[in-house]
């Protein structure tokens, strides 16, 4: 087990008393509580942590935060495996397992590093050019090889055993970021009494102040503010929580990493929590990210952001190098040099500016060598940095000249300035604007409810951050309606140091001097995009920033432009001879920081992926050994198998017995709509194609309704229960659509009609009883209804009681048999089913499911979902005679367009196979017999079944010519399988065409 040889014995914000064991690529190490994986690896002297995306170049830790481009690892194993986690964000815990990515057979010796030898072939867009030939489908062959060679980590294929949850939250003021600006904003808003949520993505509050040496004035300030915040009952503090997106109406997406810092979540605890937070106001205090400077081989392990080097020293007591070169273009980075020097490192500052000013003099006084007007041209060493070449440098042009010299080192700390985190502002629309003084993008017009404060607004001085944050928090609370006073917040003198931004001079590139071969100068270290790739894109005409991004893969994956965006824009601006703001910038989409898909899914998995809908008979059906089938969200009874039966045997038996005795099927899934009001008849008359004003009380009628465009929307029966009260049924599939359609018509087209429609699908359970014995059974079970044909004819409706159960009985038939639909209040459904089963024994009652229901209705040529699929007209369904000519109705104008009534449209027919043993399959295309087979042919098969009554397969379908084709032989073909079945076109009503059985 390695020792932590780079760990200091004092300092940092860690707990040395808690040693934590972990493994990286199978090798055991130790760290301490408070470490990240990155700090623990660096403490152990591990600098090589990954291989690059394309060239498989060795890569190390670059940052100390979420912007980490190269130190991506795979954490944990089995179902808990999580790829592409920045080691800088992975908190260390006892037993942590981490593995490097994109390397084979090992991180130290990666075979695919050979890619680096063929760099010219792998430039930007290489796969668009190189792998398209020599044959038309060459790419299909290359793609899997390229995918295996390139990429990041591999997702787990096993099931994740942990829980994830989704929660709604609300706040008057959301404060994003727990640095000095965010803490001050939360305090100001909290003091007013507003409901405040403060979200910080790191485990500790303090932001950049945590990079300061521990135990000083910054810690005291953080402690006092946090203590006051924690004492406020109206303030919620969320650490380990990333605000990854800003959306409409003050909605923000947050992910709280509840248990990522544990080997596994505690009992009942989710691993991550997705929070949808709706805020009245939001103060964005997301800080800034340090910008690198591109120089040769700047991707070598041992090149690190200066702020990161300081963070490792002051947060984690890790000395990331012992002989350090600090390359900067600003004063701010000198703090890193001072702290590293004080910690015992040898430090040389390479200052790109002509004059380092007072800060350089201060460094010299601390025995730090400062070389001004120079740049680091390149690093050398393999695989780790062992030294740099430096050269006199013109910061205005980026050109080095007058030779170079080498300097040994084991760490290059680089600081090219700071980029405000503007993503949450730009996600709401306003583009970021260029601040020429600070050479960075800052938020433009404050979007909707947002305000910005601190470094994310371009204010890099701590005192400014605190003052801005406090003012923004107070203003946000006031806008949100809080009436309390925020008071004052004094900024301690010790926190008023200059941030150095005034002395900032941008450095966009380091072009090597003569005599030094040009090396790759990476802009996007994660995606292997270099200065030369931007040049190539420019040469090939990709001058817009959006095209540049996509052609080069700049800012893809977890990088999202955090470190690369502004440098790439500067390169393009230079190439085009324009200013950076003229090039523009891409907006930042959410999520800016990666979030796991598991968190977004939350608890909506497995049976909760979508809700399950059960009929009121469900439990009773379960007790009858029913096999269910999913129909939309419904669980519908599919069939009721007897011993040894599969679905085919069961439904054929059920179908036969319905026609012989009586069967009962659960039809509760039918849409049921209560229609009431003085104008209900008029309303129905306008909705349906047929007439409704003459329907008597106690009678039902079949109706078809159209969409505005004249296509058939749905069918069903509607019963008149009383003068102004109707009970309308829809198909199962279209219930919600019809309800919405009716409400829309009443609210927009006919607000003058005095009608209310209410969905009562859940109020009523229903069964259909079909078969020769149906009437006798019901007459036994319901004593207060006369079931004689004279008093209760076909399409009659009666209300009565089955024992104590109130029932509505509708004499309707979907099977062609003597049949009734019986509805009762849903809570009585099981009792009604028991009642009917008991009475049914003497009438040979059987239960049947939707498979048999389908067979029965296809035998009779009744239309259902396959035929009412939104593409057919009344003429297609051969139901145009139903349409009234005496009244207008929805769709009546557009349904008579010539194309809608053309004889060239396929019309409903029945189909029987010539070879009775052959099976007609759903979806078969109907073509002329023996061809030619062309395109969509003559039509298609819409519904199929085996007909027990006829003894062979039958189908419904649509054929051009419709009735005129009856008696003709055509081919039903299934091109995917090569199946061809000769079929005879017949009338749709294939069983009992006279309808004699309907009347018993």
């Amino acid at each position, binding site marked *: 087990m390695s020792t932590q040889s780079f760990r200091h014995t004092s300092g940092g914000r860690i707990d040395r008393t808690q040693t934590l064991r972990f493994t990286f690529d199978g090798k055991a190490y130790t760290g301490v509580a408070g470490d990240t994986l990155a700090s623990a690896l660096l403490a152990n002297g591990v600098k090589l942590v990954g291989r690059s995306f394309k060239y498989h170049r060795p890569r190390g830790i670059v940052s100390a935060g979420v912007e980490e481009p190269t130190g991506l690892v795979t954490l944990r194993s089995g179902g808990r495996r999580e790829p592409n986690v920045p080691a800088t964000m992975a908190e260390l815990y006892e037993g942590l397992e981490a593995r490097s990515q994109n390397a084979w057979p090992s991180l130290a010796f990666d075979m695919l590093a050979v890619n680096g030898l063929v760099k010219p072939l792998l430039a930007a867009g290489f796969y668009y050019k190189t792998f398209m030939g020599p044959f038309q489908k060459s790419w299909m062959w290359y793609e899997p090889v390229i995918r295996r060679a390139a990429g990041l980590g591999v997702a787990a294929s096993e099931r994740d055993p942990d*829980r994830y*949850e*989704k*929660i*709604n*939250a*609300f706040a008057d003021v959301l404060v994003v970021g727990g640095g000095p600006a965010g803490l001050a904003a939360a305090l100001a808003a909290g003091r007013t009494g507003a*409901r405040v949520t403060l979200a910080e993505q790191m485990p500790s509050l303090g932001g950049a102040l945590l990079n300061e040496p521990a135990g000083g004035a910054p810690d005291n300030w953080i402690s006092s503010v946090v203590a006051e915040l924690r004492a406020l009952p109206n303030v919620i503090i969320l650490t380990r929580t990333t605000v990854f997106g800003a959306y409409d109406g003050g909605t923000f997406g947050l992910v709280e990493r509840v248990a990522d810092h544990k080997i596994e979540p505690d*009992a*009942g*605890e*989710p691993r991550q929590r997705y929070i*949808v937070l*709706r805020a009245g106001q939001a103060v964005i205090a997301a800080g800034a990210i340090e910008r690198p400077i591109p120089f040769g081989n700047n991707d070598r392990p041992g090149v690190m952001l200066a702020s990161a080097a300081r963070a490792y020293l002051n947060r984690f007591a890790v000395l990331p190098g012992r002989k350090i070169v600090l390359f900067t273009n600003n004063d701010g980075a000198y703090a890193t040099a001072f702290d590293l020097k004080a910690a015992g490192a040898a430090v040389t500052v390479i200052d790109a500016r002509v004059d380092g000013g007072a800060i350089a003099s201060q460094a010299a006084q601390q025995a730090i060598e400062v070389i001004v007007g120079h740049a680091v041209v390149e690093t050398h060493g393999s695989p780790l940095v062992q030294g740099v070449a430096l050269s006199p440098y013109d910061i205005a042009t980026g050109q080095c000249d007058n030779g170079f010299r080498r300097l040994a080192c084991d760490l290059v700390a680089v600081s090219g300035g700071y980029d405000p985190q503007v993503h949450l502002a730009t996600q709401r629309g306003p583009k970021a604007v260029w601040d020429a003084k600070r050479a960075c993008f800052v938020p433009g017009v404050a979007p909707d409810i947002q305000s910005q404060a601190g470094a994310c607004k371009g204010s890099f001085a701590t005192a400014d951050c605190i003052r801005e944050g406090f003012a923004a928090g107070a203003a946000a609370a006031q806008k949100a309606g809080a009436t309390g006073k925020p008071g004052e917040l004094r900024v301690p003198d010790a926190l008023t140091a200059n941030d150095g931004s005034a002395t900032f001079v941008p450095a966009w590139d380091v072009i090597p001097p003569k005599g030094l071969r040009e090396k790759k100068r990476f802009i996007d270290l994660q995606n292997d995009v270099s200065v030369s790739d931007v040049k190539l894109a420019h040469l090939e005409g990709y001058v817009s920033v959006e095209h540049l991004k996509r052609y080069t893969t700049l800012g893809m994956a977890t990088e999202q432009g955090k470190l690369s965006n502004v440098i790439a824009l500067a390169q393009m601006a230079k190439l085009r001879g324009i200013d950076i703001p003229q090039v523009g910038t891409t907006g930042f989409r959410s999520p800016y920081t990666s979030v796991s898909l598991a968190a977004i899914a939350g*608890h*909506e998995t497995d*049976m*909760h992926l*979508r*809700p*399950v*809908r*059960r*009929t*009121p008979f*469900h*439990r009773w059906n379960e007790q009858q050994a029913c096999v269910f089938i999913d129909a939309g*969200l*419904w669980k519908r009874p599919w069939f009721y198998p007897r011993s040894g039966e599969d679905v085919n045997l069961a439904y054929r038996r059920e179908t036969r017995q319905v026609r012989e005795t009586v069967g009962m099927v659960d039809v*509760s899934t039918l849409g049921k709509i*209560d229609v*009431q*009001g*003085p104008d209900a008849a008029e309303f129905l008359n306008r909705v349906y194609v047929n007439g409704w004003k003459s329907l008597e009380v106690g009678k039902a009628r079949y109706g078809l309704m159209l969409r505005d465009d004249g296509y058939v929307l749905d069918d069903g029966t509607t019963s008149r229960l009383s*003068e*102004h*009260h109707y009970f309308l049924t829809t198909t199962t599939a279209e219930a919600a659509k019809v309800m919405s359609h009716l409400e829309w018509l009443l609210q927009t087209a006919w607000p003058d009609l*005095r009608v*209310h429609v*209410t969905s*009562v*699908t*859940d*109020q*009523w359970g229903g069964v259909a009883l079909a078969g020769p014995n149906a009437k006798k059974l019901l007459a036994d079970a319901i004593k207060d209804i006369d079931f004689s044909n004279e008093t209760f004819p076909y399409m009659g409706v009666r209300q009565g009681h089955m*024992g*104590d*159960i109130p029932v509505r009985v509708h004499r309707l038939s979907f099977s062609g048999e003597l049949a009734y639909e019986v509805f009762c*209040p*849903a*809570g*009585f*459904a*099981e*009792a009604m089913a028991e009642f009917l089963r008991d009475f049914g024994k003497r009438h040979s009652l059987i239960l049947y499911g939707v498979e048999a229901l389908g067979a029965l209705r296809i035998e009779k040529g009744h239309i259902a979902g396959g035929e009412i699929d939104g593409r057919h007209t009344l003429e297609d369904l051969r139901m145009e005679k139903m349409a009234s000519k005496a009244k207008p109705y929805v769709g009546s104008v557009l349904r008579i367009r010539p194309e809608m009534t053309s004889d060239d449209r396929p019309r409903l027919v029945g189909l029987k196979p010539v070879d009775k043993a052959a099976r007609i399959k759903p979806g078969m295309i109907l073509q002329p017999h023996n061809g030619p087979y062309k395109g969509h042919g003559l039509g298609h098969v819409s519904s199929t079944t085996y007909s027990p009554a006829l003894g062979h397969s039958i189908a419904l379908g649509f054929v051009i010519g419709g009735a005129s084709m009856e008696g003709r032989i055509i081919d039903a073909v299934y091109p995917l399988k090569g199946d061809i079945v000769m079929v005879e076109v017949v009338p749709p009503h294939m069983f009992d065409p006279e309808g004699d059985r309907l009347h018993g």
Partner: protein
Amino acid sequence: MVEVISALAGHARTGRHGVERKGAGVIFRDVPGRDLVQVAWWPDTGPAVRAVLAKQLDVAMSDTPRRVSESGQTTVFPVAPDKLWIAAPMAVGLHAKLSIALPVAQGVVTELGHSRTVIRISGPSTREVLARSFAIDLHPSVFPPGSFASSSMHHIGAMLHYVRDLGGAPVFDVYLLRTFALSLFEGLCENADGFGYTVEG
């Protein structure tokens, strides 16, 4: 009289579930025996209908949006500008009573008692559990006792009613569509797992 069978019957496992901790975070109870009717009226008959209802139900009708009116065990929910729901014990015979009292020229009555499953949720973690299902701000300053909201749970319409506080903990009723009730109840239980929960019989 035949018994009304709940949508949860035979599926809801009574007893203590979820993480072990002192006291359940929430308690679920299926509320049986409640009737629910919808009364809807026409643009010019609202005041008349409300007057009839106030008399029939002996309820002072609230004009505050999203707030119920109550009298004894009768609760009135103004669910839409031209509709309200009334919940009461089944013994009241709401549908028959109101159908007689309200001529169709004034309004119409629809029976919905069997269409909803009412689940009562109480206990100290009630708001946390509900926040995992409902996008409603349940902070007492925004949603005080007597509030209700027509919302959705898992994209399915549901109504939430803050009944009262009991022993310092809130009591909510969730009105779920009967055919979705078991599925959504299972979802509520899963959301309560981390708090520990009891299902009362």
